C-alpha cells in the first residue's frame, strides 16, 4: 500500500490549479469567439428577433402602352394594422375601429387582442378610403397604425384585359402580365422597425428604423392603345352582329414582333374579375387556343413552294376538276365543278384546295414539314405571357400522302393564333421569324429613365426577300381579286387570306361549328401591320367565311394604319369589280358541298340553313338563277353525299 504523502497532495493541488486555469482560458476563448467570431451574425439575428416591422408596401409599377397611355395604375388605399400589446384599452379601440370601418366589432375585438405581434384588421381595415384613415388617425389610439397601401386600378376597363391580367388584394400579380412580370412590377416592400421586448412592447430609448419601400418598375408595352381600341371596337361589333361563341384578334408589327394589340371575347373587367368564371380570365385565347387553321395555313405552303422554286405563279398552270384523288380519297374543291384551268396565282386567289395538294406533293413531306417547323409551328412562340399553346403537328413518320395533302391546305394540324401571326409576319416581312413580345421598356419610377429595353428578337430567316415579295404579291391579289375581297382597304394594299377551321371535339369534327378567320397585312410593299381575326361559330346570319372575318380585319388594318400615320399608296392592285359592284349575280351551285367548303368561298349572299347533316342536298334558288346581291339562298342539309362532277 503506497503511502499518501504531503508531496502527493501538493502535486495534486498543482494539477487541480492547472486544470482550473486551463478551464478559465477555455471559457474566455469561447466568450471571445462568441462575441467576435459569431458576433456579427448573432447581432443580425438578434436584431431580427427584437425588431417588429410595420410594413410599407411598395407601389406597384404602372403598365403603359407604347405611347405612355396608362393601362394599369394604383389608387391610394391605406390599411389599418394593430400591435395588440401596445393597445391599452382593447374594448374601446375595437369599438372605435368597428364604428369607423363599419365592421364587425366582435371580429375586430378578436383581432386587436390576438396573441401576435402585428395584426391586420381583416377584411374591414384593408384598402380603406383616405378619409376613414384620417379619422382613425385623429383618434390617436395607441397601438393602432395606418399604413400607406394602394390597390390596383385598370382605367381602361375591359381593354386588353387578358393581356394585362390583374393583381390580388395583396397587390400580387395573379394573371396575365401582372403575374408574368410580378417580380419587376411588385418592387420591394419597406417597413418601419421598432425594437420591442419579447412581449411586443416598445423597448425604451430605441429609435425606430425606416426602410423605405422600393417601388416596382413601370413598363411600357408594345401595345398601341389606339390599335387596341380599334380592335376592341371591332370585336364588340362582331359580338353584337354574330353572337359568336368567341372572337379574337391580334395585331403585330411584322418588322419587329411587337404586339400592337390583342384581344378576345368573352372578356372581363380586371377591376372586377370575380364577376366572371376563372375560365374566362385564365384563357388568353390569342396565345392559348389551338385549332385547325384552315386556308390561312396555305400561306405557309405557298411560301415554301416559292422558296424551293417548285412553282411559278404566272406560268405554271393547274387544271382543277373540282376534286383531286389522294391515296384513294377524293379531296374536293369548294367550287362545284372546279375552277378549271388556272395559273397558280389564281389557285391562291381562289383558295383552291386541289391546287395546294399539288404544291404539297411537289415539296414532299420532309420539305413541307421542315418549313412548317421553320415558320414556328409545333412549338411555343416564346411570347412573354403565361399559358401559351404549342400546337399539334402530325408526327412526320405518320405522314402519308393524305396527311401531307390535308396539311398543305391547313387541315389536320392545330396551331395557335399567335403562331399564325408570327409565321405570316415572317412570310411577308422579308423572311425573318420574330419572337412576338409585349413588354418593351422598363422604367425606373423615381428617375423616369429607361433601365431595360426589349429589342426585336429575330429567331431565324425562313425564306428569302424575293420569295417574301412574291408571297406579298400573291396575297395582295387574294384581297384585290380573290376570296379576301372584303378586307380590301383602298390605298393600303392589304394582302391576306381567309380561313375556316372546323372545330373538333373528342377526335371528331363538330357539325356546323366553325371558326372563321382572316389573316392580313398591309401595306403590301412594306408591311407595317399583321392582323389576325377569328370568330368562333358566328350565328344569326350564317355567312361565308370571307364575309365574316375579312371585313373586320380590313377595318382594323385600315383604321390602325391611319392611326399610326402610315401614308396611303398611290399604286396598288386594283380591286376586281366583283359582285360588290354588280347588283345582280348568278346563284352558284352549292349542292353536295359541306358548310366548311362554302365558308372558304365568298359570295355576297346570305344563307338560310335548313335541316341537319354534312352535305347540302338542295338549294333554292337553283344554281344559275340570277339574284340580287344580298339575297338569301336557302340550303337543305342532309347526310347523303352527292356526286360533284
Amino acid at each position, binding site marked *: 500500500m503506497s503511502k499518501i504523502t504531503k508531496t502527493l497532495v501538493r502535486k495534486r*493541488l498543482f494539477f487541480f490549479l492547472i486544470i482550473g486555469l486551463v478551464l478559465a482560458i477555455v471559457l474566455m476563448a469561447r466568450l471571445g469567439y462568441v462575441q467576435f467570431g459569431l*458576433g456579427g451574425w448573432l447581432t443580425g439575428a*438578434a436584431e431580427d428577433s*427584437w425588431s417588429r416591422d410595420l410594413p410599407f408596401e411598395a407601389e406597384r409599377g404602372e403598365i403603359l402602352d407604347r405611347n405612355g397611355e396608362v393601362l394599369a395604375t394604383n389608387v391610394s388605399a391605406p390599411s389599418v394594422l394593430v400591435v395588440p400589446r401596445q393597445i391599452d384599452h382593447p374594448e374601446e379601440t375595437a369599438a372605435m375601429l368597428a364604428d369607423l370601418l363599419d365592421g364587425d366589432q366582435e371580429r375586430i375585438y378578436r383581432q386587436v387582442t390576438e396573441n401576435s405581434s402585428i395584426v391586420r384588421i381583416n377584411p374591414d381595415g384593408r384598402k380603406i378610403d383616405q378619409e376613414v384613415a384620417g379619422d382613425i388617425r385623429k383618434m390617436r389610439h395607441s397601438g393602432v397604425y395606418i399604413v400607406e397601401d394602394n390597390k390596383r386600378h385598370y382605367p381602361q376597363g375591359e381593354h386588353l384585359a387578358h393581356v394585362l391580367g390583374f393583381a390580388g388584394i395583396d397587390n400580387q400579380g395573379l394573371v396575365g402580365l401582372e403575374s408574368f412580370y410580378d417580380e419587376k412590377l411588385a418592387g420591394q416592400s419597406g417597413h418601419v422597425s421598432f425594437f420591442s*421586448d419579447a412581449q411586443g412592447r416598445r423597448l425604451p430609448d430605441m429609435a425606430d428604423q425606416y426602410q423605405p419601400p422600393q417601388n416596382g418598375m413601370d413598363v411600357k408595352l408594345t401595345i398601341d392603345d389606339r390599335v387596341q381600341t380599334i380592335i376592341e371596337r371591332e370585336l364588340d361589333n362582331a359580338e353584337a352582329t354574330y353572337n359568336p361563341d368567341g372572337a379574337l384578334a391580334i395585331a403585330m408589327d411584322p418588322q419587329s414582333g411587337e404586339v400592337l394589340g390583342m384581344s378576345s371575347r368573352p372578356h372581363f373587367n380586371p377591376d372586377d374579375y370575380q364577376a366572371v368564371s376563372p375560365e374566362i380570365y385564365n384563357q388568353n385565347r390569342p396565345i392559348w387556343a389551338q385549332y385547325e387553321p384552315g386556308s390561312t395555313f396555305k400561306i405557309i405552303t405557298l411560301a415554301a413552294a416559292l422558296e424551293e422554286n417548285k412553282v411559278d405563279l404566272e406560268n405554271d398552270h393547274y387544271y382543277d376538276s373540282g376534286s383531286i384523288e389522294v391515296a384513294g380519297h377524293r379531296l374536293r374543291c369548294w367550287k362545284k365543278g372546279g375552277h378549271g384551268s388556272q395559273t397558280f396565282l389564281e389557285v391562291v386567289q381562289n383558295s383552291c384546295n386541289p391546287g395546294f395538294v399539288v404544291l404539297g406533293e411537289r415539296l414532299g413531306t420532309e420539305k413541307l414539314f421542315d418549313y412548317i417547323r421553320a415558320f414556328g409551328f409545333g412549338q411555343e412562340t416564346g411570347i412573354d405571357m403565361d399559358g401559351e399553346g404549342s400546337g399539334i403537328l402530325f408526327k412526320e413518320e405518320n405522314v402519308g400522302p393524305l396527311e401531307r395533302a390535308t396539311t398543305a391546305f391547313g387541315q389536320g394540324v392545330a396551331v395557335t393564333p399567335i403562331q399564325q401571326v408570327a409565321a405570316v409576319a415572317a412570310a411577308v416581312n422579308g423572311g425573318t421569324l420574330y419572337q412576338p413580345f409585349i413588354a418593351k421598356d422598363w422604367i425606373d419610377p423615381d428617375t423616369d429613365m429607361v433601365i431595360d429595353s426589349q429589342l426585336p428578337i429575330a429567331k431565324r430567316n425562313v425564306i428569302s426577300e424575293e420569295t417574301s415579295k412574291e408571297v406579298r404579291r400573291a396575297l395582295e391579289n387574294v384581297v384585290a381579286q380573290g376570296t379576301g375581297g372584303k378586307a380590301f382597304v383602298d390605298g393600303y394594299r392589304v394582302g391576306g387570306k381567309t380561313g375556316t377551321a372546323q372545330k373538333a371535339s373528342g377526335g371528331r369534327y363538330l357539325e356546323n361549328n366553325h371558326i372563321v378567320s382572316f389573316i392580313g397585312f398591309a401595306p403590301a410593299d412594306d408591311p407595317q401591320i399583321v392582323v389576325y381575326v377569328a370568330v368562333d361559330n358566328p350565328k344569326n346570319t350564317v355567312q361565308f367565311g370571307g364575309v365574316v372575318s375579312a371585313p373586320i380585319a380590313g377595318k382594323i388594318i385600315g383604321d390602325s394604319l391611319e392611326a399610326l400615320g402610315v401614308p396611303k399608296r398611290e399604286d396598288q392592285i386594283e380591286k376586281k369589280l366583283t359582285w360588290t359592284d354588280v347588283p345582280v349575280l348568278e346563284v352558284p351551285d352549292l349542292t353536295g358541298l359541306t358548310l366548311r367548303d362554302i365558308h372558304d368561298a365568298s359570295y355576297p349572299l346570305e344563307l338560310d340553313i335548313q335541316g341537319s347533316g354534312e352535305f347540302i342536298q338542295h338549294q333554292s334558288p337553283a344554281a344559275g338563277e340570277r339574284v340580287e346581291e344580298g339575297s338569301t339562298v336557302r340550303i337543305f342539309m342532309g347526310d347523303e353525299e352527292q356526286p360533284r362532277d
Partner: protein
Amino acid sequence: MKNTKQPVDGLLLFAIGALLIIGVIMVYSASAAWGEYRFNDPFYFSKRQALFAFVGVIGLVIMMHFDYWKMRRYVVPALFVCFGLLILVLIPGVGLIRGGAQSWIGVGAFSIQPSEFMKLAMIGFLAHWLSNNNQLLASFRKGLLPLLATIFVAFGMIMLQPDLGTGAVMVATSFIILFVAGAKIKHFAILGGLGVLGFVGLIASAPYRIDRITSFLDPWSDPLGTGFQIIQSLYAIGPGGLFGMGFGESRQKYFYLPEPQTDFIFAVIAEEGGFIAGAMVIFLFTVILWRGIRAALLAPDSFGTYLAVGIVGMLFVQVAINIGVVIGLIPVTGITLPLLSYGGSSLTLMLVALGILLNISAHARSV
C-alpha cells in the same frame, strides 16, 4: 496547531468583494424589467439580493474570525441534519416545488434549499474524515467505498427532487477533494467510467435532459422550444462585442432571456459590458481559485487543506458549468453563478464558505 495568524488575504477578499458588488449591480440591471413587470418594482430583485449579500457578508465575517478547526466537532452532526432536511424536502406539503423541482423548505422569502447546505456539509465531512484517516484512502474497500457510499446516498436524495445541477456539483466537488487527498488514479479511472455510465443513464431516463443535450448540439433545430434558452443567451452575448451595449442597455433582459438575473446573469454581463466585463469576471473567479489553492497548500493541517480545496472546488465547478452553459459550451443544466446570480441560499452559503476559506488562508504557514 498553534501558528501565528496572518493578516487576511487581501487579494482573495478583493476578488470576493468585487464580484459581490458586480453581482448586486448586475442583478439590478438584469431584473429591473422583470421586477417592474411582475412586482411593479424594478428594484424588487436587487433589493433582496442586497439583503442576502448583507446577511452573507455577516456570515463571511463571522466565519473569517472563527478558527476553522473548531468546526470539526460539528461536521458530522451537520451532515446528519442535512440528510434529515433532504428527506424532509421530499415530503409533500413540506417541500416547495419551484421550477419543476421539489427543492425548497420554508415559507416565502425565508425558504432554503437543503441541497445547497448539503454541498457544504459534504465538504466539511469529507475534509474531516480524510484528515482523520489519512492513509485509508489508498484502500478501496476501507477508504474510498464508505465515502463513495455517503456521497451517492446524498446525490441520490438530491436527484429525487430532482436537481441534477446541484447534485452534479456536489459529486464533482467531492471527487476533487478525494483526488487531492490522494485517491488512486486507478480507482478514479474505474469510478470515472462508472460515473459516465451513470450520468448517461440519468440523462437517458429523463426525456427533457435528452432535449437539453440535443438542443445544445444544434440549438437552432428547435429555436422556440428546447433551443430557446441557449439561443437567447447567445443573442445577448454576441452583440456585446468588446465593450458591450453599456450598463442597463441589455435588450435580451426584456423577457427574451428566461431568467436574466439568475442562471443567465453572465449573459447580461457580457451583453452590457462586452468581452471586457465577461473576461474580467472570469479573471476574478480565477483569482479566487488561485488564492484558494494557495490557502490549501499552506494550510497548517490537512483538514484545512481539504476544506479549502472543497470550497474553492465547489465554487469553480459552478463557475465553469454556469458560464459554459451561457456561452454555449455545455448543455443547459440550471446552476447559478456563485456571488453573481440572484438567490438567497446560494449567495449566503457561498459567502459563509468563502469566510471559512479566508480563515484558512489567515492561518497559512509562512512561506
